């Protein structure tokens, strides 16, 4: 079966690139033709868009808490120590 002029490897690369810049017309046409015939690449595209949607919301404001472990006790101590040391230093000058 001929998938227009791009194969799946090329189409996946172009589908990804289309999320980052506007592709030339012949590439957009080529992708569209290929996607009409190829269910794997259509899924790939759909799933990339889904991932993008999820990741766009993957930020501090609406991310559930406690995904990450807290700062380690050791790092906490070290930073507190450093801060109080530097703060004392700041006051002297």
């Amino acid at each position: 079966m001929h998938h227009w002029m791009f194969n799946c490897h090329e189409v996946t690369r172009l589908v990804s690139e289309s999320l980052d810049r506007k592709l030339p017309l012949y590439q957009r046409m080529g992708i569209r033709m290929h996607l009409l015939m190829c269910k794997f690449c259509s899924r790939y595209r759909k799933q990339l868009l889904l991932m993008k949607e999820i990741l766009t919301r993957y930020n501090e404001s609406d991310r559930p808490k406690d995904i990450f472990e807290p700062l380690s006790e050791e790092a906490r101590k070290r930073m507190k120590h450093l801060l109080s040391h530097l703060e004392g230093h700041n006051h002297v000058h």
Partner: protein
Amino acid sequence: MRACTCRICSPVERQLINASSSCELIRMNESKKEKEVQDLDPKLWVDQYGDYLYAFALTRLVDRNAAEDVVQETFVSALHSMKNFRGHSSEKTWLTSILKHKILDHFRKKSREEKHHFETVGDNIRQLFDGKGHWKEGPEKWKTSPKKLFEQKEFLKTLYACLEELSRRVAKAFVLREIDGLSTEEICKVLDISATNCWVMLYRARTLLRQCLELNWFEISPGGAS
């Protein structure tokens, strides 16, 4: 275009920040609302904001040691530039904006160091396709809805673990693009790479992440019909 007036920005950052207008320090200075000036209390920083800043850094750096380092650098910088804090934004926002600078600094420094290793980023992508460029094993159909997913902590944990698996450099470009929403041009500047390299990295990152999520998270619908 306005130049960033904060003292932490390097010239490159100023450009970046003008492009994305995300520097809290600029907004702070421009804010016309005179709020009560808030007092800073460095003694409480670690307990109050340590975990938050650490999670923020970890999301982007995907490296525990590096995340600890930038958080520490942030506190130190903040302490030295307390004079610049005008109390127009919250202490947390102010510290976060300093952290953002530190993260970009870290990316830049790392990308200079890793420049020569770029070619060793394995091309695992090719193995997914046969000699003619057709899928060996195509993507499965995912049984899922993003809304439901997003509420599931476990999913984000899987996502994070997958990001950790990605090669550092590829993951960096990806995080800057998808989580921080930087343009390819901005990413090129931060990582000091060509646009073509950037597109290739993003392609690899997306393809490998897709595969990792499919293996570790998504229920595959039976039959596999599209």
